[in-house]
């Protein structure tokens, strides 16, 4: 049945219908497969046509406890009715308890947490923290590492061949005169231990 003659209900049960809408209204990056997911449970997910898949990518690597875990869903429902957000001037109980829990699961001397929303943000924040604490600015990043796609985090991201495919120029958080002489972000071949020593002696 063509999409034009299908009823609205029928259309919304079709991957093709949503793919067409997606191509019209979303910037076409990533998402290269015409699979439109609708729900998930544990390791399984279903598309809008009812086709079932085993999700071996865990969402985008986030669903360690599986999709729609009952205990997580319950806590989501409870907290939605309690409080969603507060201003930066005040505290909240779940944040204090989460920080305490994280301190319990990581080895000493790791102890204090700071919270954000995404991986890229956490990379940015960790670099700012390191710069502030050490008073230095140069960073050595691993070859083949992925740390995000924001302006700072992409400066430390590279593909498997070592190229940093990000939008150039990369981050320049140091005085330009220093940048001209030394590169801020250096790549480190994982296999070359000697290279690491050499790099740090410079």
């Amino acid at each position, binding site marked *: 049945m063509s999409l034009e003659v299908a009823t609205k209900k029928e259309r919304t049960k079709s991957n093709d219908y949503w793919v067409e809408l997606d191509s019209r209204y979303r910037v076409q990056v990533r998402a290269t497969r015409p699979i439109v997911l609708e729900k998930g449970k544990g*390791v399984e997910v279903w598309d809008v046509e009812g086709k079932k898949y085993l999700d071996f990518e865990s969402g985008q690597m986030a669903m*360690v406890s599986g999709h729609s875990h009952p205990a997580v869903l319950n806590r989501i429902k409870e907290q939605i009715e309690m409080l969603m957000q507060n201003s930066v001037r005040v505290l909240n109980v779940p944040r204090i308890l989460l920080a305490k829990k994280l301190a319990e699961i990581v080895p000493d001397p790791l102890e204090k*947490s700071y919270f954000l929303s*995404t991986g890229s943000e956490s990379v940015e924040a960790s670099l700012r923290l390191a710069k502030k604490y050490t008073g230095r600015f140069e960073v050595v990043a691993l070859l083949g590492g992925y740390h995000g796609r924001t302006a700072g985090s992409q400066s430390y991201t590279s593909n498997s061949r070592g190229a940093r495919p990000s939008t150039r120029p990369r981050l320049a958080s140091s005085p330009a005169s220093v940048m001209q002489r030394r590169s801020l972000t250096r790549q480190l071949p*994982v296999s070359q231990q000697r290279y690491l020593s050499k790099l740090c002696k410079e």
Partner: protein
Amino acid sequence: MPPVEWVRHMRQICDEREMLLIIDESLTGLGRTGKWFAFEHFGISPDILTTSKALGQGVPAAAIITTEKIADGAVAKGYDQGATHMGDPFQCAVALANLEVIERENLLSRATKMGALLRNGLEELQERFDVIGDVRGKGLFLGIEIVESKESKKPAVERTAKLVVECEDRGLLLGGGVSIGGLGMNTIRLCPPLVITEEEISAALNIMENVLPMV
């Protein structure tokens, strides 16, 4: 996984030069490799640890974890960090519930056990099919590398893409066949939720077994 000695050497160099070691465990953290964090396999500890993705179990949540010395030292020097969602009660309540699930359901040991099962299956496929050049990873953070032949070790990008698409058509969603970060164009990632069952692992391996002769 890099060699243990290499990682320890990196830690040693950082110590000697008073460099801070930041480990980004966005992908590898929270049980995925069989431990809370992958750095624990190396017997070292970072100065700053980042965790995200799995922390919020679908709700955007990330954390940096550091030592008291660094945290208090940086703040004393005027460190400030702000964001609209910097530990909302909603984000944190969900993350906490998720950590409790990981603990209560012993998902760390489950990742080790199920990871070994999946890995064994993948290694059996590797023996039978010349295109699987390598099986690697830890716990349920596993990957296979697709090559033209074991002898040539030449990366087989088109075969990788075909394998991913054919598996998807048969109901197995995989990560790979695209160039993002460290995931090479000929590497496929196999990282199911840690709650996976033996039956689901068998089903996934069956799909791959049927598809592999076609690529």
